[in-house]
């Protein structure tokens, strides 16, 4: 590991100031991703600011009926929080499908949003990667790309965002609250928080320098009766998804009145299935409608040399997740 300076427990203001003064500074949450990447020489911060102890670790009810989840709360505490389990079981189920109990205990919600791609070219510093080293090329584009994107990729980057949680947040139309170094705050919808690689794959998100995630905001409780997170992976736990689908349905009198759908591990960001959501509203929850909704999305897929399987897998995963959501007894 390269030498760095470390601030163990700053105040919010000190943290923001330190991050703003040093462009090579990084915030440290649970450390489950940043420290690994530092050991791999992929992340090379000269200054590490521990933010896990900042007072953003609560789950609170908002005046709009929604909930705010602190960015520094652990993934475990969030997933197991009684209010989250009761009001947003889709989020709870999704978060518990991630990683391992040990990692979920350490990982923070803010850190989860910011976890970096698992693309092997990103991890191996002797190989080209535009995300790690802009301009060096994308090794995966014509290389090992079985786990890579089928939506929204560019010739500069075909990496996928690995988070499970963010897929559920996209299905739930969550937003992210950010503290700005100047003192203000701003809120980004989860789809505006992330970005596609374009010609700047080094940027995973639309966060500005020094900005600190303080909270995730969930709109009023939804999909508590009909929800499912389907994670297709190569082993039963402790594996990133090949394809995942977060699905929520609101059904009134046999008709879908609202649908929340997002896929994980298919794009540079959680991939919200807006077309499928819109298609399903006003329809009966039938297999044929689920198939059609999935088809509307999957026909937009652009595969790489090794990830063709993600198209049939994605199609079936969407249908299965919707079917499971519909059949779930609340």
């Amino acid at each position, binding site marked *: 590991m390269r030498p760095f300076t470390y601030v163990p427990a700053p105040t919010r203001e000190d943290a923001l100031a330190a991050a703003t003064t040093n462009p090579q500074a990084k915030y440290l949450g649970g450390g489950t991703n940043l420290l690994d990447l530092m050991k791999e020489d992929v992340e090379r911060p000269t200054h590490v600011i521990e933010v896990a102890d900042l007072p953003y670790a609560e789950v609170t009810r908002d005046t709009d009926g929604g909930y705010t989840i602190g960015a520094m709360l652990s993934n475990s505490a969030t997933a197991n929080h009684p209010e989250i389990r009761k009001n947003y079981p889709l989020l709870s189920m999704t978060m518990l499908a991630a990683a391992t109990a040990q990692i979920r205990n350490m990982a923070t919600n803010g850190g989860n949003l910011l976890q970096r791609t*698992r693309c092997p070219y990103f991890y191996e510093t002797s190989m080209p990667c535009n995300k790690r080293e802009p301009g060096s090329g994308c090794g995966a584009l014509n290389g090992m790309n079985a786990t890579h994107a089928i939506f929204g990729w560019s010739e500069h980057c075909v990496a996928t965002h690995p988070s499970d949680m963010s897929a559920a947040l996209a299905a739930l139309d969550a937003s992210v609250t950010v503290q700005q170094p100047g003192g203000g705050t701003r809120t980004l919808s989860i789809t505006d928080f992330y970005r596609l690689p374009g010609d700047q794959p080094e940027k995973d998100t639309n966060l500005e320098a020094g900005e600190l995630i303080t909270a995730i905001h969930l709109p009023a409780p939804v999909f508590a009766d009909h929800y499912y997170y389907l994670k297709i992976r190569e082993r039963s736990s402790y594996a990133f998804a090949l394809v995942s689908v977060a699905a929520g349905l609101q059904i009134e009198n046999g008709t879908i009145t609202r649908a929340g759908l997002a896929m994980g591990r298919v794009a540079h960001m959680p991939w919200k299935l807006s077309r499928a959501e819109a298609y399903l509203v006003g329809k009966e929850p039938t297999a044929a409608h689920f198939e059609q909704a999935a088809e509307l999305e999957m026909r937009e897929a652009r595969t790489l040399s090794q990830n063709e*399987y993600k198209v049939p897998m994605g199609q*079936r995963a969407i249908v299965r997740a919707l079917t499971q959501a519909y059949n779930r007894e609340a």
Partner: protein
Amino acid sequence: MERGRGRGKEAYVMKKQITSGTGAAISRVEGRLKVTGMAKYAAEFPVKNRVYAQGINSTVAKGKIVSIDTSEALAQPGVIKVITHENALDLQGHDKEMPAIGTSSPMAVLQSPEVHYYGQYIGLVVAETLEQAQYACRLIQVDYAQETAVTDFEAGRYKAYVPDEASDYTRGDVDSGLASADEQLEMTYITPIEHHHPMELHSAIASWTDGKVEVYASQQMVENSVTTIAKTFRIPESDVRVIAPFVGGGFGSKLQTERHVMLAIMAAKLIERPVQLTVTRTQMFTNTTLRQRNEQKFRIAARKDGTLTALVHETLSHTSTYEQYQEQCGTPTKMLYASPNARVTHRLMPLNLQTPFAMRAPGEATGSFALECAMDEMAWRLGMDPVDFRIANDTQTDPSNGKPFSSRLLTECLRIGADKFGWDQRPAKPNSREEGNWLVGYGVAGAARAAPYKTSSARVLLEVTGGEVYATVQTGATDIGTGTYTIVAQTAAEYLGIPVERITVELGDSDFPDSPGSGGSWGAASFANGTRAACLQAIEQLKQKAGITATDVSIERLLLDNELTRYTAEGTAEPTEEFEQHSVYSFGANFAEVWVDRDTGMFRIKRMVNVGSAGQILNPKTAYGQIIGGLTMGAGMAIAERTKVEPNFGNFITRSFADYHVPVNLDMAEIEVIFLPEEDKIANAMGVKGIGELGITSVAASIANAIFNATGKRFRELPITPETVIMKEREPGVV
């Protein structure tokens, strides 16, 4: 106690004490040491004045180092030395080009600027702390004259050659066997590159004192380690001591004494301080050995009644560009079934990857995947039950060499396993049993693994304390997590007739009496019989001294009669002529039930029943552990393990446990392990046969066969994953 006969003295025939001798399912005698962290592994010995080394890896797959700039690294605080090919000690290399390597071949390192594969050691940083050494490694600038590497199996295929070691085998007339068959099938089975990945990272702490070298090293065979080190550094074996009391798994990767050990020894000599070198998990992919990719072409021919008429098994594998290793995938095809005609070949191609070496059940684990899947494919073609088909071709004579099997209970393993598993409930047709979204299938595979037995010695030190006899057994054997401490203690308890609590076992020191170490499933039989020989020697010598002829005289009595409070004896056990005249194997059968999701490609191994016949089971508890470990590794082979080579750069892109998957607890089924009672005194005096590799053998085939039964899809390439299940078509003929 009853009065016995002594010669002029009183002797007593003891009623047999409760000794927890062989066969008792006692807990590990070293268990407390392990769970309290007191058991010391190689990297944990508090060697004074030690420094830390970190290996530097090449970042090209082929070429020549033009220059290495170490100045920035050397300028860092704590950095003591950087060793490269420019300032390395001169070491003994191989005596010819591309030799076939074994467990005691020399292991020269840093002898030239040539790079043969990505990740090869090109240098070493030695520093006061590990962190300093690791950081300094990043500051070393290397210029390469890069050359075109061949790391792709397809690209290397045309360079395939006949290896130096025996590779081909034929019996009968294969062509007429094929011609006389009613059905014949030809398939190609592929197993990927796998890595051993024992939990304990390979480590060494080396020190030189008065021209002698002492190394704490995680090694499976300490005697062979001594030989490798002595050869490589051109010093007498008497000047080398290797110590490995606890080894955290090996699976074959610690049979050889790898180059990190030589680097630590070299560095210790150059800087005149003890040097510790631990291979990182990522380096475990490039700087320890691997199981190579195998392409196995298989032809199987049978008559309608289920009689095999021919088996042809042709294996193509890769080795490095500087050494040969071939995995004998054809081994089970030679001996498992009574086909009168068989041909087995092995071919190697050089690739710019490190030299492969034995991984758990080399030959059997991979070869049985091909053979036992082929048997299933033929059974289906013939419309026969796969259990019946195997039994129809069972034999008590080894078809590979005409020798009788010392004991072979394959049919019993299959029959009893079928009964315990509920095989009669197997879906008769593939793709026919549904449970909700799942398709359910059953699969079976037979297994055989040689039960080798090697000359092994032990020393027993007896000591009377407080009127009771305590014993210490010393042998160069190793415990690689298998239970050696426990079975050696139980053996000594049994033959000395004292409780196992009074036995101390000391292992893994090349200064102890010679033992073959752990590998190839010979450990338990060899160590136990060596220990038995030492105990019997002690008793016999004490009897002679005291002039006692009676049997069943207690060890207390013998020491008392000799007026001794301490006594030491050594014994050696070795294979008999009868052993050599027989084929000695352990046999088994594995049954698996697999549920496959009809849409998503996900599947679950629901349960497995494994039946083994492996002679006398010394300790059912440790033996079950071995089989369960083997089954888990076999399941991993079927559904998870695969090292991926990047086609453009020639490196492994699986470089951590996040990418290289092994099964998690949730993947593992409900497992039942059954050992059949078997007495095989031809194998050895104690009738012990190996189980370290029996468990993994054929597991992958039983799972692949179950998936076929569930879905009608044949998987001839491992691992089987959701993506392969989604993309695979059903076999022609499956409804």
